[in-house]
């Protein structure tokens, strides 16, 4: 065996964890004086990291049937974590303590998780935190949070009433004599079975109180506005700033804001349009994730990928990925049809594949599944300015949860999450659309 062959053999045994201390010293001495060997070692280490990424990606693309959402969290999105979880625990703990002040029973099971994708956390009244919740788990009163881009969860109360938590939703939930929820922010879609007389289901938001006896509806809340869409039945909506009350019935929509100058009335709701198209001559809504860059010379305006919470490790640590998230502002973006296509114009610093995820809800607001497509970089050619365009039919998206194998009829897109296959590609998006096949840009 030549000296080089002997040293390469030592290297392979080092990587396999089989060298003695003396052999490691010998290997160190050789590496100290051999730049070629060091370059080879660096390359092997880089290959191993990339192979690990690929392994996680493949596990993610073949999720276990019963825990698809969990695989999404723990396997694929093992990326950069950058925020101390402790901070969110403290914040959530305070919020829960505020809400559960002893009036509510807190130890018995209140809900069961029927469906979940992405990161779902629960914080109990004493600050106990559970992360990475999965289907079938039963939980008592507490604060629930969908903590990653595209995360959704469907909870079922013991009487069969269902509530779906949309992406990035925080809600405290309890049931003593009646069901009570406090929606801090986000979206809730309800399917409420008839409640006992005198004990309606109550939903409190920063700007409104909703009283429900039995109905199907969706409520979206932020700090200064609550939007209610009633699919079936009747919901009593109280605007908190002045106590004015409104009955909102089937197929109606109403908005309660902090101000009293806006008209407080129910109007006939309508599904979002079948065509949605967005360029960035104006910055995107605050609910989006992306760094807006205005047009400059021949350069179009675009949004650049920013760190987004993409999932959660098994130990509860949030994991981040650079991406862009589009959301409707108090409403869904678009209604899907059988011939819907996604059109995307994007650019990256280096050629890279993209992933696009759609969060979809049914027409009545219930969770309709998450769907994803990969756009290999070979399928598109960049123009001279580096921008690429892809048009992808709905049929090319694959389900991330087997329970929802295909987008529902008249499904409504609540979220679009776009990310590149590698971390440092400087993803930029200049145009984004979901529209019937054959539509053209305005």
């Amino acid at each position: 065996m030549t000296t080089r062959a002997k040293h390469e053999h030592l290297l392979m045994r080092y990587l396999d964890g089989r060298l003695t201390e003396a052999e490691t010293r010998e290997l160190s001495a050789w590496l100290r004086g051999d730049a070629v060997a060091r370059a080879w070692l660096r390359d092997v280490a880089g290959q191993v990291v990339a192979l690990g990424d690929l392994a996680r990606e493949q596990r993610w693309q073949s999720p276990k049937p019963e825990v698809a959402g969990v695989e999404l969290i723990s396997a694929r999105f093992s990326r950069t974590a950058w925020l101390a979880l402790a901070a969110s625990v403290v914040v959530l703990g305070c919020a829960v303590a505020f809400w559960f002040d002893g009036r509510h029973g807190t130890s018995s099971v209140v809900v069961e998780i029927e469906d979940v994708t992405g990161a779902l956390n629960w914080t109990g009244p004493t600050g106990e935190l559970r992360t990475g919740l999965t289907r079938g788990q039963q939980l008592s009163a507490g604060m629930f949070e969908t903590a990653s881009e595209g995360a959704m969860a469907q909870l079922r109360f013991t009487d069969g009433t269902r509530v779906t938590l949309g992406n990035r939703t925080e809600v405290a939930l309890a049931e003593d004599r009646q069901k009570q929820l406090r929606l801090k922010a986000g979206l809730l879609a309800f399917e409420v079975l008839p409640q006992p007389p005198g004990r309606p289901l109550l939903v409190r938001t920063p700007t409104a109180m909703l009283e429900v006896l039995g109905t199907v509806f969706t409520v979206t809340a932020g700090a200064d506005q609550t939007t209610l869409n009633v699919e079936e039945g009747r919901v009593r909506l109280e605007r908190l700033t002045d106590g004015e009350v409104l009955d909102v019935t089937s197929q109606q929509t109403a908005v309660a804001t902090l101000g009293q100058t806006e008209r407080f009335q129910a109007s006939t709701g309508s599904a979002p349009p079948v065509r949605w198209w967005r360029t960035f001559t104006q910055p995107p809504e605050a609910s989006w994730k992306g760094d807006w860059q205005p047009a400059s010379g021949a350069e179009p305006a675009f949004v650049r990928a920013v760190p987004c919470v993409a999932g959660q490790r098994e130990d509860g640590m949030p994991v981040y990925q650079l991406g862009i998230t589009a959301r409707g502002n108090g409403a869904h973006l678009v209604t899907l049809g059988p011939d819907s296509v996604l059109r995307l114009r994007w650019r990256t610093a280096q050629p890279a594949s993209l992933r696009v995820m759609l969060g979809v809800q049914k027409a009545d607001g219930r969770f309709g599944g998450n769907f994803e497509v990969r756009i290999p970089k070979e399928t598109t050619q960049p123009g001279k300015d580096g921008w690429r365009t892809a048009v992808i039919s709905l049929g090319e998206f694959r389900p991330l949860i087997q329970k929802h194998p295909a987008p529902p009829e008249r499904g409504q897109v609540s979220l679009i999450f776009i990310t590149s296959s590698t971390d440092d590609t400087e993803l930029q998006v200049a145009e984004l659309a979901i529209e019937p096949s054959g539509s053209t840009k305005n």
Partner: protein
Amino acid sequence: MALSQEIIVRVLFAARSRLSAAAWLVVRDAQAAEDIFQNVSVKALTKGVPFEQEAQLLSWAHVTVRHEAIDWLRRQRTGLVPLEVDVLELLEAEWAAEPTSGPRVDALRECLELAPAEGRRLLELRYFEGRQCEEVARATGLGLEAVYQRLSRLHRALKTCIERRLTTDEATFSSAPP
């Protein structure tokens, strides 16, 4: 002016491959290397001292990754001995001087598709399933030395293929011994 949290995350993302690789060279456990990188990322954001420059952040990250990796080895009591510190420092300095941070996943995927089935199987057992070479030898019916030799050749072939893919957009794969 101190780097913002977003810039810190961007810089660490861009250097993730080399930082994780540096951790792996010490711990030789892919999952542990990933965890170490994530822990260092969290430390970078919660550390009280602001980073003024990207180079300062990266230098700090490399040193912290090395310390965390060596601590991990001690805690695990695996008996694994890392390379001597000055060699690790040399490797870190060379990594920092490289324009790119290692093979891209897309190029690697394409090169793996070109690899012979037996080679792919070896790489899967060793790195996807995280098996020691002795277990790989048992699973494949090869001797341990043969596994070392073939893995070594596969790494060289992957390196060549990835470089060709990244520079010419064409990939070829040859793991035949020179």
